[in-house]
């Protein structure tokens, strides 16, 4: 579509250039850039203004125009160089050859054309999508050798399809979402029924009556949804419980307006997107792929560090409750876990640590990891089944 737009704008300019530009825009779209009609026209305007004289100038100008986020910004140079600075004749052929169907991702053919930086383009393309990234990781996971634990995990996740249990998990999540949903903020909003008078707005409303206050405007507390961030331990020692909690997470992502989920074992994986997948079978595929690194041990401290460094700023705000589901058996550095928990506690509103082992008779939290973490936890509670999770409802509601 934008090809037409760009062309119309460029009636005067050589049609070859317009075609190349259209080809470039298609290439960008294929690499998950969002490029609309306006951008095509503006790109033509940039070319017409003489920015095309020097490649570095054109690259910089297009980079600002077409990028919308940091990921785009980082991979743009590679795509630009491959398209415009690759071998000229060949890439022209490529762009006009694929002109027939816009669906055809021309970037895929680019690496063959330009031997300059083929691997960079293809890797960047993968990195743009969280789900596919995980698949790339599985490659390594498999290479490290499939252990017994890995296959166990997969079987566990498949049980997620069991309709009755899934329904139960969703019901619990829904109830929890209902009781935990809203938190009050300090800022007031105008309401018809409120606890105090909004003098300013009342006067405004009644100017037309000569200032006699006939209609009253009141203020009330503004309610904001509580955000729930779940960090689930998917290590070998937790394998008995992972499937139950995964069902729960599935329900939480469904019911809460704002929720995020992470899985960790020896590293951290962001699984919200995979879990939000409508098609259950595909969701499971993506999930079991992510969990396959499990079994080696739990580096809670390191996973938390990754979380604090890369995800916390985006995911956590002042009305966030972080729920960590883990048995606290840390194979890494316990002191590090303590430090990271402290950092996390400063950022979020509450931390809940659910420990399946706590439900066992004669168990006390002696593991070094959990000892280091406990001072920063607001609620430390047992949860080994969905039912015990449901029993926690009154406590969680108070958070």
């Amino acid at each position, binding site marked *: 579509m934008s090809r037409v737009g760009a062309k119309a704008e460029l009636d005067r300019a050589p049609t070859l250039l317009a075609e190349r530009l259209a080809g470039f825009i298609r290439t960008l779209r294929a690499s998950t850039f*969002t490029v*609309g009609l*306006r*951008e095509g026209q*503006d790109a033509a*305007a*940039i070319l017409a*203004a003489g*920015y095309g004289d020097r490649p*570095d*100038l054109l690259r*910089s*100008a297009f*980079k*600002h*125009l077409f*990028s*919308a*986020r*940091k990921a*785009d*910004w980082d991979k743009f140079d590679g795509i630009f160089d491959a398209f415009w600075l690759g071998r000229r004749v060949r890439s022209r052929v490529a762009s006009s050859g694929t002109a027939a169907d816009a669906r055809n991702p021309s970037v895929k053919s680019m690496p063959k054309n330009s031997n300059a930086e083929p691997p960079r383009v293809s890797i960047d393309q993968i990195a743009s999508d969280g789900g596919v990234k995980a698949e790339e990781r599985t490659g390594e996971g498999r290479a490290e050798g499939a252990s017994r634990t890995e296959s166990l995990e997969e079987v566990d996740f498949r049980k997620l399809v069991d309709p009755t249990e899934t329904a139960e998990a969703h019901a619990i999540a829904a109830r929890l979402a209902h009781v935990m949903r809203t938190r009050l*903020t300090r*800022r007031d909003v105008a309401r018809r029924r409120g606890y105090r008078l909004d003098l*300013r707005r009342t*006067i*405004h409303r009644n*100017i*037309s009556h*000569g*200032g006699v206050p006939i209609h009253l405007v009141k203020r009330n507390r*503004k309610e904001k949804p509580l955000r729930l961030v779940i960090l689930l331990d998917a290590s070998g020692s937790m394998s008995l419980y992972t499937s139950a909690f995964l069902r729960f997470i599935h329900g939480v992502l469904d019911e809460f307006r704002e929720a995020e989920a992470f899985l960790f074992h020896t590293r951290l994986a962001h699984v919200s997107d995979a879990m939000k997948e409508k098609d259950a079978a595909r969701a499971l595929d993506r999930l079991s792929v992510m969990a396959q690194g499990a079994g080696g041990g739990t580096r809670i401290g390191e996973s938390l560090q990754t979380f604090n460094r890369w995800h916390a*700023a*985006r995911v956590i*705000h002042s009305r966030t409750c972080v729920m960590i589901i883990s048995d606290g058996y840390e194979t890494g550095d316990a002191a590090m876990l303590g*430090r990271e928990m402290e*950092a996390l506690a400063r950022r979020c509103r509450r931390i809940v640590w659910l420990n399946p082992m706590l439900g066992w008779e004669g168990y006390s939290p002696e593991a070094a990891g959990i000892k280091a973490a406990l001072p920063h936890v607001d609620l430390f509670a047992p949860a080994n089944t969905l039912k015990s999770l449901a029993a926690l409802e009154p406590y969680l509601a108070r958070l």
Partner: protein
Amino acid sequence: MTLTRDTIAIRLAEVGYIADADLATALSIMYLLQRPLLLEGEAGVGKTEVAKALASVHETELIRLQCYEGLDQSAALYEWNYQRQLLAIEASKSQQADGTVDLEDRIFSEKYLLERPLLAAIRRPRSPVLLIDEIDRADEEFEAFLLELLSDWQMSIPELGLVKAVSIPHVVITSNGTRELSDALRRRCLYHYVDFPEIDREARIILARIPHAGAALSLQIARMVERVRKEDLRKVPGVAETLDWAAALVGLNITDLHDAPEVVHDTLMCLLKTREDSGRITREVTSRILGKVA
């Protein structure tokens, strides 16, 4: 008026902002396409400074809208001056009744309108620079309504009618990335990621802001900060912190960092803003880093 990239870079340097070539290009196509510029990057890399420098390059007014949670129309767009309206009503009561329609027209006129930043920005005869700072702090609703203004350059005030832009402001939006911005807003804007400056540019920035520092010390400071940024810190020092530190060193009459390693360590608190970070950079670490700085 469109400016070329080089003219912009030179003029920015004149007002004390050392820009990289990419940013100068961004500013030049910002005029060409009349699109807002979205700046993202770590805190303290000089995002807000871009807008200030831009305003002095054009010798025009800088209108700043600081975003915060709960920012609403009456704080961002316009508000009626209710007190004055009431006074006018009371005053007209004491005089003989000259028709209410007339009164209503009067109290909903320009005279009783309080301009807020967004309205002010589109009503200036000469294009101002509009800085919308830290937009990620504002609510999503605000973003949506900003979008309308940015695409049509007009806003409607029910009592007055449509207000069209007299001149189109140069809009600079900054974000710290604490919240994901909407795709619509991102698409509307040109995007520029502001990174920490490279050593050479940071030295020039120090020299431009603190001329007493001298070229040699500036370069040393820039190299040192570059190393400190590579340490495992919670809060990576930005350009503002570098300038603070440089000012402190100059104030203490230091001309060479190697002459006074003690002072270097003691003044590092200009760069390190959390307890963990200052705990992590011990005297040994400082001397190690200092050793690597030529």
